[in-house]
């Protein structure tokens, strides 16, 4: 239930007008009743005029004002008594006026002799004071800053406050600003205790996460947030769930009805009116009892106190107030303790993950700013930041968190619905076909002359504890083959056919050119030049076609300027023809890949002229890289990559540049040939300027039947960039696989 503490409205004109209106209404009603039937009398003794109001006021006040203390109770009682007497005297004067009697004679009915007058005086007094009763509530004694600095009590368990009420998306900043755009509300000590119960003490030294204030929409009552944790009414089926349900996560008991609110609604003086402040925070005793999804998140994810996440400064710089720094905001990042980066403890971040939004208090990061950059005091900077908190980019955070943070939710295996197999799929859309059997890697057939040239098998590489360089068959350093790009306009036949197959995908430009010895059918989205797509495809196709240890059915390469989907046309790369589709970031990639595969597979050269393409000659990969010991982070990275099945790490060093290639392959498999191919492809991917608007590619996903190979160039501060290669089973969860590769890349980069 909403709390009215702090909403005294003593300075609000509407409150005084409302009180005056109630005063007048009470007098008018009482006088009208007296005029209509003055004979209504009750033989009450005179002292009832004193005892009855005092009893009523004394009992009602604690119900109206939560946590009312004795002092407030006495003040409220006195105020009501004065009002009661005032109404009584005014009523007596009116009675005397309308009844043509003396004022002394009218006092008896006005105060106790005429029961409606007594009742109306009491009701009028109560309603008049209704808007001001918030002034009687005790104030929060601990300022927020102090509360945040309070060290947690050992084993302190406090039930956290519920998440904020629902706010429209357009008001996303509104809740952060709080009612009336005011600064952050003082945090209750319960907030500190909540964090204390879930994170180490060092972490709690950081400011506790404060929930945004509640905003009630005028159209409809606010929707109370319900807990999302697995304990919401569900019988826990795990020890973990038992732990969550123990003690602090029970639903709150039904709150005591707020009589004041009921009276407000009854008499129309509630806070829901134009210009009326929205409901503020609930009282602490209710707050403490409500369950929190946030706390559940922290309970599931123990965080090392020293663990941090690094937020690129440019992701948050827009939230800093301009004019608060001596240097332009763009230059502030370079002067941070860690240049261009804000470092935030994971202990601050993880408890908020379950909310879908993460904020950090200014105090947590202010020390990373050198004092010289401030044009005003840091405290003033905080006041000029919305709610004193910086909104952190979730994508950066999630990318850097170890997977065990989410292990509680994704580590419980596939979901099974008992009995569902008893019923067939009820709905079948038009043109529905039975799901195709999973693609099977077809061994090279006789019709595919490229196959014999491929390495027949991956030779096993004996790995010893002290790896020694394996004799290199071809000592010449691996170089990207020089590709002569020449554009030869071919007949538009192929392009038109493929365009028809790609009709569901709105293509912007279609072209067919000869790039080197490959015929590239390029399809580019708006904003991407077809020549750039074709050039990139011509550069990459020979490497993929000739050097890949296994036939690649489709390659998806992501770059800063867009994504290239490269699919061999017809029966494979041996046709010398590839379909290259370029899209800007944000396009419908999954569907595009599916359509491209369908289009490329369905297309067959229709004329001898089309099949006369120069077949790319597969060049066996003869280069051998030196085995190198995997980095210490490789074991953890391999565990991250569970979407690929079990993997082991093998590292190789490119002889010429010394670059490392970290390969993760299924146990028992060797990456001896995979590493040179990945290196070559990474080199071809890096040739940015020639790729035009697509830019250089940072990652590639190669599909081969049920296998998936991801190649990613890792950032390197100095020296050649290492390459991450992950090859394993395609589990049909590309999003998860991609995320896990990203995590592995972060681990290896940090190492």
């Amino acid at each position, binding site marked *: 239930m909403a709390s009215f503490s702090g909403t005294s409205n003593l300075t609000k004109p509407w409150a005084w007008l409302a009180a005056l209106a109630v005063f007048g209404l009470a007098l008018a009603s009482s006088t009208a009743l007296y005029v209509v039937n003055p004979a209504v009398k009750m033989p009450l003794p005179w002292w009832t005029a004193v005892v009855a109001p005092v009893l009523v006021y004394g009992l009602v006040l604690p119900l109206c004002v939560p946590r009312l203390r004795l002092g407030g109770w006495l003040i409220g009682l006195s105020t009501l008594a004065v009002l009661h007497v005032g109404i009584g005297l005014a009523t007596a004067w009116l009675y005397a006026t309308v009844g043509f009697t003396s004022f002394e004679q009218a006092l008896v009915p006005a105060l106790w002799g005429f029961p409606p007058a007594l009742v109306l005086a009491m009701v009028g007094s109560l309603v008049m004071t209704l808007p001001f009763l918030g002034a009687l509530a005790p104030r929060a004694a601990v300022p927020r800053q102090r509360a945040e600095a309070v060290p947690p009590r050992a084993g302190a368990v406090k039930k956290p406050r519920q998440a904020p009420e629902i706010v429209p998306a357009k008001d996303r900043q509104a809740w952060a600003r709080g009612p009336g755009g005011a600064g952050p509300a003082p945090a209750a000590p319960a907030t500190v205790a909540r964090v204390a119960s879930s994170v180490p003490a060092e972490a709690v030294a950081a400011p506790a996460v404060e929930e945004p204030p509640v905003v009630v929409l005028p159209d*409809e009552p606010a*929707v109370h*947030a*319900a807990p999302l944790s697995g304990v919401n009414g569900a019988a826990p*089926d795990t020890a973990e769930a038992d732990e969550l349900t123990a003690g602090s996560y029970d639903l709150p008991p039904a709150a005591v009805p707020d009589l004041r609110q009921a009276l407000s609604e009854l008499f129309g003086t509630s806070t829901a009116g134009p210009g009326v402040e929205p409901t503020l925070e609930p009282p602490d005793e209710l707050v403490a009892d409500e369950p929190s999804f946030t706390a559940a998140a922290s309970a599931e994810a123990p965080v090392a106190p020293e663990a941090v996440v690094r937020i690129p400064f440019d992701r948050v710089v827009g939230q800093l107030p301009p004019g608060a720094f001596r240097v332009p905001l763009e230059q502030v990042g370079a002067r941070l303790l860690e240049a261009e980066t804000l470092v935030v403890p994971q202990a601050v971040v993880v408890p908020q*993950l379950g909310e879908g939004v993460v904020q950090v208090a200014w105090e947590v990061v202010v020390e990373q700013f050198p004092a010289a950059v401030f044009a005003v005091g840091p405290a003033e900077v905080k006041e000029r930041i919305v709610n004193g908190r910086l909104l952190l980019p979730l994508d950066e955070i999630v990318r850097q968190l170890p997977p065990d943070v*989410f292990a509680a939710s994704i580590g419980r295996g596939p979901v099974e619905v008992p009995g569902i197999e008893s019923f067939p799929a009820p709905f*079948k859309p038009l043109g529905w076909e039975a799901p195709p059997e999973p693609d099977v890697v077809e061994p090279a057939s006789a019709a595919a002359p490229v196959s014999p040239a491929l390495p027949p098998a991956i030779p096993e590489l004996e790995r010893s504890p002290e790896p020694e360089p394996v004799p290199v068959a071809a000592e010449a350093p691996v170089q990207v083959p020089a590709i002569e790009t020449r554009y030869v306009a071919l007949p538009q036949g192929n392009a038109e056919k493929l365009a028809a197959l790609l009709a569901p995908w709105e293509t912007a430009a279609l072209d067919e050119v000869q790039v080197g010895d490959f015929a590239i059918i390029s399809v580019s989205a708006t904003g991407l030049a077809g020549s750039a797509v074709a050039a990139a495809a011509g550069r990459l196709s020979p490497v993929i076609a000739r050097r890949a240890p296994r036939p690649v059915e489709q390659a998806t390469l992501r770059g800063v300027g867009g994504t290239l989907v490269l699919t061999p046309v017809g029966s494979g790369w041996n046709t010398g023809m590839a379909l290259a589709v370029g899209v800007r970031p944000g396009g419908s990639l999954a569907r595009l890949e599916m359509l491209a595969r369908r289009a490329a597979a369905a297309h067959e050269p229709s004329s001898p002229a089309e099949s006369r393409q120069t077949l790319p000659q597969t060049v066996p990969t003869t280069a051998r890289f030196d085995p190198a010991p995997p980095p210490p982070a490789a074991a953890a990275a391999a565990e991250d990559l569970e979407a690929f099945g079990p993997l082991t790490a093998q590292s190789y060093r490119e002889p010429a540049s010394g670059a490392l290639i970290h390969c993760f392959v299924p146990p028992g498999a060797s990456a001896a040939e995979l590493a040179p191919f990945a290196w070559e492809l990474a080199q071809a991917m890096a040739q940015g300027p020639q790729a035009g608007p697509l830019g250089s590619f940072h990652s590639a996903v190669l599909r081969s039947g049920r296998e998936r190979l991801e190649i990613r160039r890792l950032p390197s501060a100095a020296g050649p960039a290492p390459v991450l290669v992950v090859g394993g089973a395609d589990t049909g969860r590309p999003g998860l696989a991609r*995320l896990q590769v990203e995590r592995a890349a972060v681990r290896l980069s940090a190492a």
Partner: protein
Amino acid sequence: MAIINYSQKVINFKVVYYGPGVAGKTANLQHIHKSLPDASKGSMISLAAGDDRTLFFDFLPVSALTVRGFTAKFQLYTVPGQVYYNMTRKLVLRGADGMVFVADSQWDRLRDNVESFRNLEENLREYNTSLDEMPYVIQYNKRDLENIAPLDYMEFLLNRRARRVPSFEAVAVNGDGVFDTLNTVSRMVLVGEFGQEKGEHRETA
């Protein structure tokens, strides 16, 4: 609660698509309506505001199959996702037999997903029921966009109750994952109504 018409041998189920605003609930129904043959669908009723956002609800009756002599019909509803239409959401939720929670996968909509999910739980509680008693699935929509959260984080946000439920990636505007979602929740509803024992069912769609 399923409504059974014994004279016509028809059993009606109500499936509600719930989720935050602009998550793709109406897009799901539109694709279903577009893709089903005429014989197994009725007219789609959609009350939308000027900006094409659902004002009241969308309604699409579809026929599915015959189970133990009864024709199972599903009435698909969406709720308005905007927060200020909670009374409408409560009304639409009444008597639901199954639920599809359509989540927006974009990073900047994650909080809206969480709030909407809590709102769903709260509204169900007012009907003295809960998601623990209700067949439901989760659909992670807009998976074709670039700025989307990874699946495991989406699962962490929305599917970590004691009882995990099936979840699907989808691109509702293209139809990807739409029928997987619908078929699964429908089968879960049928299991809830008829039990696990395999009944005599005949497909009519």
